[in-house]
């Protein structure tokens, strides 16, 4: 009986991993789109690439780590991403409105919502493996200095960096979750995988 139960749980976990991987892949695409919309809205040059110091700080995701640890670090990174995104949304009001605001704001909301879903999915995976004890206390959210009193240009650049971080970590999550899934692929029931990227439904 115990063996049967274990297999059932394992099967459920695989399915969750696959779903989370599909969600991460979808979110990565949405983040890419958001970054592009923001770049255009703020008339940043196309060659703009932000590098150097990262806003999200987690230890490296080495292949030597156990799946649990990798999941944990991913979860922590996504958590920081969400905090940064919330701050960006709040601070952005100070910069002023411009450009194609409606499309940009709609995309930003989509990313915000899906990031919440991905966090919830990742948390479920962690609970499957380590139980709820893993979340006492919650992963520390590293305070990142934001140019609250800085120039509008610095603020715009900082928000751009946040969106870049989002794009990076959703891609990393997607790849890691796919690697964690035994088949290395998303499940059949996942509809997002095969969907054309240009025709996504936005909320």
């Amino acid at each position, binding site marked *: 009986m115990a063996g049967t139960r274990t297999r059932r749980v394992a099967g459920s976990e695989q399915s969750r991993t696959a779903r989370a991987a599909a969600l991460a892949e979808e979110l990565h695409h949405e983040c890419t789109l958001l970054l592009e919309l923001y770049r255009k809205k703020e*008339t940043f*040059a196309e060659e*703009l690439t*932000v590098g150097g110091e990262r806003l999200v700080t987690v230890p490296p995701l080495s292949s030597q780590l156990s799946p649990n640890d990798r999941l944990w670090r991913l979860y922590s990174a996504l958590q920081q991403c969400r905090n940064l995104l919330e701050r960006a949304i709040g601070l952005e009001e*100070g*910069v002023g409105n*411009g450009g194609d605001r409606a499309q940009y704001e709609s995309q930003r909301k989509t990313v915000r919502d899906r990031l919440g879903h991905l966090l919830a999915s990742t948390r479920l995976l962690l609970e499957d493996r380590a139980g709820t004890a893993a979340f006492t206390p919650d992963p520390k959210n590293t305070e990142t200095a934001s140019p609250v009193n800085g*120039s*509008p*240009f610095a603020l715009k650049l900082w928000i751009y960096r946040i969106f870049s971080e989002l794009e990076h970590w959703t891609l990393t999550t997607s790849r890691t979750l796919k690697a964690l899934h035994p088949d290395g692929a998303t499940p059949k029931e996942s509809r997002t995988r095969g969907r054309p990227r240009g025709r996504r439904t936005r909320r």
Partner: protein
Amino acid sequence: MLNCIVIMHTVTGYTYVAPGVLLSGPQNVSVNYDLKDQRISVTWEDDPSSSRVPDKLIYDVEVLLTVNMTEVHSEAVDVRQALASRKYHWSWTSALPLECTSHSVRLRSRYQNYTSQWSPLLTITGRASTHPQVFPKSSVVQVDSNFTFCCILGPGQRLEYMKYNNILMNTTHIIDQSYAMVVHMQSPSPPSCINVYCNSPLYGTCVYVGYPPGDRNLVCETRDLESVECHWDTGRATNLTKQRMTRYDLNGRACPNRTVSNCYQTVRVDQGERNWTLTARNPLGTLELRDTADLKKRVRLLAPMEVLASGVNASVQWQWERPQYHILLMVCQVQLNHSGHIDVRNFSGIGLRSVVLHGLAPAQTYTVQVCCGLKQHFWKWGDWSEGSTFKTEEDIPEMLDVWMQIEGNQTMILWKPLTVNQSHGQIKDYEVTWGRQETILHPPQNDFLISDRSTDEGHRVTVTAKNSAGSSLPSIIIIPRLPHRSKSSMKIVGSDGGFNLSWSASPNSSCGYVVDWCPTHKKCRVEWVKVPAGITRARIQSASFEEGVRYTLSIFACTPGAPELWERREGYVKECLPKGQIQRLAAEQYGSDTVLISWTAIPPESQTAFIHGYIIYYCDTSHLSSMRIFNVTTDELGAKNLTGIPVSSYRFIVKALTSVGEGGDSSPVFLQMNPQTDQLITVIIISLGSAACLLALVTILCYRNWKCVKENMYPKIPKPVWKEEWLTPLESNGRQILYVDPCQPSEIDIVCNREQSGEAVLDNNAGKGALTNTNSDVPALHVYYNQLLTKTTSGHFTFSPHTMATPFSQLSGTVIQNPSYNLEVQASLDMGQSVGYEPDMNSFSCPNPELHNTMSYVPFETDSRGYKFQCHIEDSSPLQE
């Protein structure tokens, strides 16, 4: 002396410039700067104990680039000794951002030609950086101005580019690692500022470009007698948002945030006339607007509240929100809205709160609104109250407009339904009275059929309408005893969707005229209009008028008795191109150059305009461009002969001509015209047929009367008889000789066969079937058979009947044998040869009798089949049996 002063200054800090006058340098010099405005401020003092300068004292101020002591700006500042304060202030805005490089400031005092020493340099240090930085940060710049940005590079770094709004710009080297670019701000920035980069999109700043405040037309007033409300026009948009948007102060007190075009402040309104100052301020400038007003004369009343209107006496009441209004002498407007019709009435009084409205229509719904203003010191009308709706009482209906429509023995009594303004309430029923009969009808029925009008009383019909207030005055109409005499109609042309009708005055008309109308070719309910007496024209307009429909308009004279039909008109409100099609178009050729075109005209009920004629269009199908036209009047009923038309193939089409153009096109008809030669051939064929018939008739007649003809023309010729005794006994050599008696001349020539040439000898030795003419003395004419004998290669001798027919023609080498006439004589032994024989059909000349005497024939005893002797009785006629 000057040197002395200098020295003295050197020693004491003062320069002696005149008796009792000491020139001191600036004391306590301090420099401040504001990076936001790029402004340098300098303050300094003079020593009061040394101020003996009688007239103006000047201070020279210099701003230098610290690195190379290049002068950036210098200015002579005039100060007044009379000023109580000895502290001076000077400021200057730098075009080059102060962060770009270090700036130093120094100053000295000057009196006439004497100057003090320069004050020590006070330096504002420029910025240094390890990576490219652009200055100034987050500046706000006015549109259409030039603005300088500088880029400070880190040690050892090279300038790659500076970009404004992603556009590469020209740069100038300031000093060391500092570069500048000047941008002309052509247009306002978007709300999220314009980016400026240096070397990389990561290094830059952001600039807002907009306009200073442009507000105008400040007006202040009071609404509640407790506060001031100022309004203004915002003018041109500043394009600056958030922290950079315009802020307003009214008389030094800040207006609420997000104020745009009005500011409200609680004040005392009994202060008389005073100034109201609005200050508008944004990063690009400050603007002051002023208005002078006594608020007690600037009262704009609030809207009346709780407006109520009574339907009984049409009184309107309302309340005031502010009790202060109750003592004000005010004027009020009461606006009545009745089915979109607006009526405004003015009333005045102290603290007005109710009015009575007179002259309202009964049973009508009105919406009433009120607004008021001060009667004394009228400033503006206050706000309109909310609308209040009420309904007035009912009254008896107005008289009905009654008319009739007579069809045969029946008369339809018609009346127009009363409008809301005429019915004065809800119409409950109609009462129709004729003779001693009475009928009650209920809306919406507004007609009544009277079929029996045999009695005199039946001709007078009365109709009344009734509502809750009572019955209307009766409307009377008298039906004529006899039908109207028919009148011929005149054509009339409509205009602007109706008819402008005029008619001659009728001597019988005592109470005006009635014009009624209906479509000419449709059943309908008539419409009518009544024209007062003395007027003989009317504009006939109806919502039911349709374009392209023919109407008949009848003008009746109103008399004390029954109306009399006076005149009639027919016409179209607007003529349209015919929609119906001309049918049954046909083209038929008559003669060599005439074509009859016929068609069926558009029926009157399908006509959408008066048809003035028809036009025949035709063209040669091989030259479609050669269109020709024939006009046909309406008198020529659907047919037209076109003459002088050359033989060809034609396409015909007929169109109806109306005042609005051509239309009703028929379907095209094609006609291929035939040339005259065909008819000639027909005549020839008919003639030949007739001749053949005649010939046949003659033949039949001849056949029937053949015996007579034959006896007259061809008497019977006796058949020759062959007898054995005519031959000699068979000789040993197989030869027999025919006895020939001398031929007696007779009236009839006997045509003989080949033996006529003399004795015919069947000579076996002569070859196969050779006939030998034994008589060489035969005259040429009678021996020509022999001449025509030809020996074929096979040894046959052949007669050709053709050659015999034409004795002088060339003889053919081919044997044409006639079995009937072939003479085959076979020898008793081995003679197998045959000789073809054909008599000379054309030669009916009788042979010489002498020749017959010499003629011999040797028949083949055993086979006499091949010999048939024929003689023909020859007349002069070529006919033979």
